[in-house]
């Protein structure tokens, strides 16, 4: 005779929970959030002008999505992210890899990079506006400055983590410096480069909104500032939702790309 498995209390230390329970708990938290929000509006605890109900925000979002102007704003924002992030990656990935591979290059660049990292990127906005005017220039530049120094360090650190035995194995098989860089270090670090890019893309979105709020006539951030002028709180919040969804989408795309690009990675070993 087998005894039926005893039900474990929900809060058992470190014990795994069923996937269904995990999803249910995640959804429950969101529902609770919306319920409190709706309650606060219905009960008159907040002015609807300052905090519209979740349903109002949703209907505004649907309405906005059917206007071409909103799509132009979204397109402008996404384009800025793409261009600036591509520029930052093209510089940061190769530089990070060689800095992580050669101590001399690390010693040369790192003190310089470290100083720039500690300067908040938005502090460059006034001077970027003076240099690049009010077009796309200052926005792309801000996003670039905000991302590139951190991405370099992340890639460098991941490169340093490439297992020394891999490099020594190639050496004893006759690998030259260039061959080891190309056939061991680059392929070994590539999955983590994609992880680093995913991490920095989230930061990129933060700077995008700052750039668009401060000095832009289009883009999601600018749309939100326009809405503020007319006290359209619902549109501002719809903008926030769109930014959140786009960020989440980017993250998902990177995760999927990671899985497709690196099928050989042993997920259980992580």
């Amino acid at each position, binding site marked *: 005779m087998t005894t039926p498995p005893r039900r474990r209390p929900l809060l058992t230390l470190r014990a795994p929970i069923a996937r269904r329970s995990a999803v249910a708990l995640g959804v429950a938290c969101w529902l609770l959030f919306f319920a409190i929000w709706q309650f606060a509006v219905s009960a008159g605890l907040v002015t609807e002008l300052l905090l519209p109900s979740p349903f109002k925000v949703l209907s505004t979002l649907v309405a906005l999505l059917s206007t071409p102007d909103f799509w132009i704003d979204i397109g402008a924002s996404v384009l800025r992210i793409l261009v600036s992030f591509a520029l930052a990656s093209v510089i940061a990935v190769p530089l990070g890899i060689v800095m992580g591979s050669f101590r001399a290059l690390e010693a040369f660049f790192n003190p310089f990079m470290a100083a720039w990292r500690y300067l908040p990127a938005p502090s460059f906005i006034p001077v970027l506006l003076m240099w690049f005017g009010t077009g796309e220039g200052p926005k792309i530049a801000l996003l670039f400055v905000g991302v590139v120094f951190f991405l370099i360090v992340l890639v460098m650190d991941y490169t340093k983590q490439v*297992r020394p*035995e*891999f490099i*020594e*194995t*190639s*050496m*004893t*098989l*006759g*690998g*030259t410096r260039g*061959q080891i860089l190309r*056939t*061991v270090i680059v*392929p*070994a670090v*590539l999955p983590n480069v994609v992880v680093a890019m995913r991490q920095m893309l989230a930061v990129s979105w933060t700077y995008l909104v700052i750039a668009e709020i401060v000095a832009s006539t289009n883009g999601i951030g600018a749309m939100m500032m326009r809405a503020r002028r007319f006290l359209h709180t619902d549109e501002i919040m719809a903008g926030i939702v769109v930014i959140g969804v786009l960020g989440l989408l980017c993250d998902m795309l990177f995760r999927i790309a990671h899985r497709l690009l*690196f*099928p*050989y*990675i*042993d997920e259980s*070993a992580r």
Partner: protein
Amino acid sequence: MRLKLERIGKTFPGPKGGTVEAIRDVSFEVGGNEVCVLLGPSGCGKSTILRMVAGLDRPSSGTITLDGRVIDGPGRDRGMVFQAYTSFDWLTVRQNVEYGLRLRGVAASERRDRAAHFIDLVHLTKFADSYPKVLSGGMKQRVAIARTLANDPEILLMDEPFGALDAETRWHMQELSIAIAEETGKTILMVTHDIEESIFMADRIIFLSRHPGTVAANIVPAFKQGRRWSRKEDVLELPGYAELERDIMRLMRQQAGAETEAA
């Protein structure tokens, strides 16, 4: 093929600015087709010696020569198998084994043939197109051995190659390595701290003492009657096995004893 170590010493920078002498005055030779085992207690510097032969570390004094040429860096004439798994996880088993050949631009068809031969030698033909993530620890070490052999080194260096494996896999790997040594005629210089492994594998055991590491004994397991045995249990039952194992254990204990007295 003749590997020659002459009065090798190695010091490391120690704490408080001084130096620590890891290895002192180590001299020995390894000849063609020999399976030579470096055995000793942990901390005797046996891995450091192997790394210096590989060219991955430099001796502080003395010279290492292979067929008269002084070793001053890594080279494909000395292939190395590490204790840690080194199968490149982004390459299939076949691509791993072909790796060294690709580095020096061997034509694709020849590469494929050579790789197939050595993959077969380590019984991994069924896994030739698999990625290392599906392989067990023993299989990963077999990939490393095949990859090193496919590169046709003069000497195969093995640094505790089976140290991370479970006991059963370990003796299978020991027997496989002996079979490979017989089949290919390769010279092997191997580091281990496992006495049983050293007696089964070695044509000659170089026993090292520690602090600093130096050659304490040069042991030829004469009871094996000058031949290699393919099955481990056959060696275990030979007269003379137990005596040699006992003698080496005493050597090990002396080392430990010297350590305790010194401390």
